[in-house]
């Protein structure tokens, strides 16, 4: 039984959206069912590797209804099959369940999404900023943050020759 049929029969009510583009098999998943479906895929269908976890801010995307999309790319290392799962979250309080209990790879990937987009993951063991400095307040990869920043990069003391 293919993964698609299995998912359909296992979660008939979930409202999963299946599609394919080039060689990507994609599934749209509602946030509420996300954890169940990922657990099912990992434990029953051997999607044992989380290759990628990232987010997209759809603020300026034409015709999109939701603010953030979170993308999971799963790999079945035995058959080489790949799945791209996408779920949506919205302001004002974007939260998703953490998949750290399933794949340890999610640890830093979720921290990065939190750092760059401000999407938090409930149940993550250590959700701190990872790339930007701790005192940073903005979420740089959101579309409403300007490319050149808000002057953070100029905010340092200037040393001259006579110092030090």
């Amino acid at each position, binding site marked *: 039984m293919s993964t698609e049929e299995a998912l359909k029969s296992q979660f008939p009510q979930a409202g999963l959206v299946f599609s394919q*583009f*080039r*060689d*990507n098999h*994609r599934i749209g998943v509602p946030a509420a069912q996300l954890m169940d479906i990922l657990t099912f895929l990992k434990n029953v269908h051997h999607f*044992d*590797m*989380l*290759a*990628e976890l*990232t987010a*997209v*801010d759809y603020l*300026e*995307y*034409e015709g999109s209804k939701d603010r953030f999309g979170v*993308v999971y*790319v799963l790999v079945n*290392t035995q058959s*080489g099959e*790949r799945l*791209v799962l*996408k779920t949506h979250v919205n302001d004002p309080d974007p939260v998703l369940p953490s998949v750290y209990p399933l*794949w*340890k*790879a999610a*640890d*830093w*990937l979720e921290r*990065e999404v939190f750092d*760059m987009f401000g999407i938090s993951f409930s149940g993550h063991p250590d959700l701190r*900023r*990872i*790339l*930007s*400095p701790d005192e940073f307040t903005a979420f*740089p*990869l959101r579309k409403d*943050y300007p*490319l050149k920043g808000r002057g953070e990069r100029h905010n340092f003391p200037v040393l001259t020759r006579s110092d030090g």
Partner: protein
Amino acid sequence: MPFEVSELAEMDAPDKEYLWTLNFGPQHPATHTTLRLILTLDGETVVNAVPHIGYLHSGFEKLGEHLDFNQYVTIVDRMNYISPLHNEISWHHAVEKLLGIELTPRCKYLRTILAELMRIQDHLLNTGTCALDLGGFTAFLYFFQQRELIYDIVETASGQRFHTSYTRVGGVAFDVNNAWVDKVRSFVKGFGPVHAEVHRLLTRNRIFIERVKGIGYLSAEDCINMGVTGPLARASGVLRDLRKDEPYLAYADLDFKVIAAKDGDCYARYLVRMQEMLESIKIIEQCIENIPAGPVNVDAGTKAVIPAKPSVYRSIEGLIQHFEVMMPNRGFPTPKEEIYAATESPNGELGYYIVGDGSPRAYRARTRPPSYIHFAVFPQIIKNHQLSDVVAVLGSLNIIAAELDR
């Protein structure tokens, strides 16, 4: 050699008074670039390690949303800067998948050769500096000489020795000539002896083995669960190589082996890398004698492709298309779709997740950086090792800060 884990289990508590805290980096010779570790030590034994990263975070992905598919290639170059061309190849692999462009056979072979040269270049620097950090300067110098030869080769092809920005959507910037082919041939011929010499210097060197054998063990299950790919995973016995599993470019036609080991320690990683270089040489040998003739860029009828210079100067269609592709406010229509595409970079699975919004710019250009994912395993594998093993493990993980922080 690492201690038994059970022996030290109770030391995990952070408030034990006899523990030392040591700051390692961000400016430290053994990290090569900007990594920072906060190590908790019991004497010489590392009880806990907390990595702090982001010291080179430069907003690559944000830039990717502001530059078009051809321009952004100059930025991805700077991501894994010890094998720059491979990033370009991966990036355009993803873009071409999004646009649905099928490369010409000549371009496929050309890119395959370049990708393998980059794999060699990456492994050369990695094994070289790994030896350097453990006190073997000679291997580093021998290997750097070979790197210089590869620099020469890419310079002949592209005009730049380091950040080449050589690939374009649907092809490459310029076709290569016979001088380039000769250079590749002579490199292939001369590489074997140097490789053998370094093999003799390191592989059975007592000091080197003592420092790397049994250090930094990573099991196959952990590799898969933590998303580790590339030589690291193969050194732990995970037989996964995208060149074989999801063939791209010309890899489907070529005859090569996937190198793997069982031990999962630093020594196994070193051996896998050394052997992979020879495998890459084999691939290059097959390709360089069989480069198909014909055009290197796809047919200019495809809207996304920069037309050849003669057609720009001599025909009105060529001129119009050049204008459409080059002007920032024109551009070509692209699918309003999203795609994830990955290639096997020297470091592991290098993927791009591109969201297209119909314009020639990516709406979101996400990189799946292997270094980032590999560095996340570091705290786990360094536990209960000696302080001096930190350097060996860091060297074998091959962390590139620009790719790590982007």
